[in-house]
């Protein structure tokens, strides 16, 4: 039964692993994560009445471990931004113990920071994307949102791992999510980027600094580091992301499912009208931007790919010297839930999208950087495959 929070509510959720590590855990999904037989419209008219034919690998694994999939929430169109997304409310409102949010530019982390929750974005490529209806294949992944970091590790342990049907997964050694006992000193040195405060207002910067002092009190070593190109993450994300989105959304033609325009003279016009009517404004603008780079300015796309490789290397180099990088999760004047244009969406996700561009893991910690009830959230971006360390650091901060 649909509600403000759920677009689909499973009347009696079932699982097939009664004794699994997630036995009895209630998990909420977004409606772009395929569960056979569930309406899977991904928040878009372009997928109207689409019902998933197969289970996503993540869904199979969650059910196999005993998790109860309670339903799917409401989400922004194709997971681009957070307008209209209710997923974090499913957790904060007690309908689920944890939720999965498609993290394409920071959606899971920002949604969690808005709801005072924890969120974890894993290293790109350790969780199968089979069955995830996304928009930007090289940047998107499942983000896990929960009330405490201790709930995140068991979920990650279940969903991470090779999937022989997802050939896009790199051959990575999946980290060991130790569920009992935390290695407290795995994250010791945390870098603060010199360039980060330059992106913030004076108030935001001051607040961020006071939050950082709490990190020091908790025993972490803070050191200033520089990443001159930090400002380029946004541009690279937008150019590469919009091009991939344009390709990914090419399949929505309204013929086999989704909204189909009523009267058209020929198939070309039918495509044009169907797509024009199906997509909402921000997504449509984003697809146009991608098409612009594909058709009119491919050189810029190639430049962006090259710069992306450089940014990845710069972050990896920095993380070879420290254990994590601290960033605020969100900013005050740029509400993600209200972003109505591509520019506003990127403004809102300015501080989270670096982890998507680079594929690095990131943990959102609530209650560290806050002001009068507004929680900015704190992000710890870690080394590739260092997820257990980040989660341990999170557990330490919670105490």
């Amino acid at each position, binding site marked *: 039964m649909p509600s403000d929070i759920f677009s689909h509510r499973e009347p009696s959720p079932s699982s097939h692993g009664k004794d699994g590590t997630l036995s009895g855990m209630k998990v909420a999904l977004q409606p*772009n994560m*395929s569960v056979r037989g569930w309406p*899977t419209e*991904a928040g878009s008219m372009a*997928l109207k009445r*689409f019902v*998933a*034919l*197969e289970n*996503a690998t993540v869904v199979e694994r969650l059910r196999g471990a005993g998790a109860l999939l309670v339903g799917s929430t409401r989400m922004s169109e194709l997971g681009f931004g957070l307008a209209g997304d209710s997923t974090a409310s499913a957790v904060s409102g007690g309908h689920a113990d944890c939720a999965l949010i498609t993290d394409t530019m920071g959606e899971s982390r920002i949604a969690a920071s808005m709801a005072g929750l924890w969120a974890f974005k894993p290293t790109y490529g350790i969780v199968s*994307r*089979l*069955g*995830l*209806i996304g928009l930007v*294949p*090289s940047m998107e992944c499942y983000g896990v949102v929960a009330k405490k970091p201790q709930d995140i590790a068991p979920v990650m342990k279940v969903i991470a791992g090779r999937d022989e*049907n*997802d*050939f*896009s997964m*790199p051959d990575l050694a999946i980290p060991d999510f130790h569920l009992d006992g935390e290695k407290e000193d795995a994250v010791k040195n945390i870098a603060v980027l010199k360039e980060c405060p330059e992106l913030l207002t004076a108030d935001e910067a001051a607040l961020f600094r006071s939050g950082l002092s709490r990190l020091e009190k908790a025993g972490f070593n803070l050191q200033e580091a520089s990443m001159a190109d930090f400002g380029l993450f946004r541009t690279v994300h937008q150019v590469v992301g919009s*091009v*991939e989105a*344009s*390709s990914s*959304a*090419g*399949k929505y*033609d309204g*013929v*086999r499912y989704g909204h189909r325009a009523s009267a058209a003279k020929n*198939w*070309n016009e039918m*495509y044009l009208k169907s797509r024009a009517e199906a997509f909402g404004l921000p997504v449509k603008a984003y697809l146009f931007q991608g098409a612009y780079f*594909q*058709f009119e300015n*491919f050189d810029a*796309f190639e430049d962006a*790919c090259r710069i992306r490789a450089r940014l990845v290397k710069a972050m990896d180099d920095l993380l070879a010297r420290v254990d994590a990088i601290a960033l605020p999760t969100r900013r005050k004047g740029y509400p993600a839930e209200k972003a109505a244009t591509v520019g506003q969406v990127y403004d809102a996700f300015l501080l989270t999208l670096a982890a998507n561009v680079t594929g690095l893991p990131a943990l959102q910690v609530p209650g560290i950087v806050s002001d009068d009830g507004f929680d900015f959230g704190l992000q710890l971006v870690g080394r590739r495959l260092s997820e257990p360390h980040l989660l341990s650091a999170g557990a330490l901060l919670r105490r």
Partner: protein
Amino acid sequence: MEYESVIGVEIHVELNCATKMFCDCPNRPGDEPNRNTCPTCLWFPGAIPKFSREALEKASMVCLGLNCQIQERSAFDQKVYYYPDLPKGFQLSQAHKPLARDGWLDITGEDGKTKKLRIHHIHMEEDVAKLVHETEGRTPISLVDFNRAGVPLVEIVTEPDMRSPHDAMEFIRALRTQIRYVGSSDCSMESGTMRVDANISIRPKGTDQMNTKVEVKNMNSIRHVGDAITYEIQRQIACLQGGEPIILHTRLWDPEKKVTTAMRSKFSGPCVPDPAVAQILISQAWLNEMQARLPEMPAQKAERFIRQFGLTREEALMMSAERDLSEYVETVINHGIKPKTATHWLATQFLPALRERRQTIADTTVNPDRFAGLLSMLERDEINANAARAVLNQLFEGDDSPAALVEKAGVRQISDASALEGLVEKVLAANASAVADFRNGVAKAMGFLIGQAMQASGGKANPKLIREILTKKLGA
């Protein structure tokens, strides 16, 4: 002014893999429409392509068979265009980093000299769905059959080294032979497993300028490729002579009217690297494994047939042109049949009989063992050539051994000289006038007498022996 043509071809070859290129659906495009489909090849949301190892192997064998350099790193791109045969809005194709580059094939030019034609590159791509245009009452409708969507293809792109329709046709024949040898495809233009597009331009003879080219499609036989190129060259010359510029576009060959007509261009967009299909890295070990799978190729095999079996070049080329025939003839020879006999009987009797019955070497019951059995009886003079031809026909009808069929038909040859002498005596007595003719120098009377003797023996006499006896008796 005298013109010469500059021709390059782009050839799509469907690989005979068991499955499609990015999913496990059967690679059988001819099945009942839309039977061989799944969420991946229908490109439903959430599907992820799963690259077939067999497709890579078969494609690599094509590259090796065409003397190409397989690249250490290759990758799939999304070739973006919107058309109902491509429901995901892009085709997975290796546009920027092809599987192989720099190949070549030798052909015999019109002047009889060997000519080396270069191949620019070979890339892999998936086939698109098939559109079927019908009418429902009076309303035209278009149906889409996804059986072909995702079928593995290689595209072979040549350099513009061809100068005539002859060159292009010879190149396609040579390419077909090589690919059939490596076993990656049957390369049939008639059934659509090989599709050839030709790029044609003309220039004043003797210059090396590269002028605007025109692409010609829709030829469904090698002969049509030659005809279409011939037509297109004439058309372009007429254009230039009429002061009309040549415009870059695509034309369709009309096999009925034997003309090319301009075709509305399909809007085609850019090629973007695909983020979901992993790049392909080829290791030396894997390459060695592929090279070890290469069979002896037709050119080497022909040379060996000349050296080892004493065949003429013409015979050797014919016997090595198809891999299955070359293996067949070699098996027959290994049964102890003289190479010349085997070659002659295959070319003049066996292959025509096979064609007549619409059989192939792969599916006929006349395997090399049975055929060699027949020829060995011929070579041992146990049957004569007429009987051998009759028994060959019977071999196609059932499973009996050649020896059993010879016994059943009672055609075992009479090579007993004393028995034949009596028979010859009777023939001489009964044909006194022919005997007289012969003695008066009418040479063809000998043939008549041999015929009479053969008839008297019921076709079973050894004709060589009859001739010997006749010659002796007539004192010629």
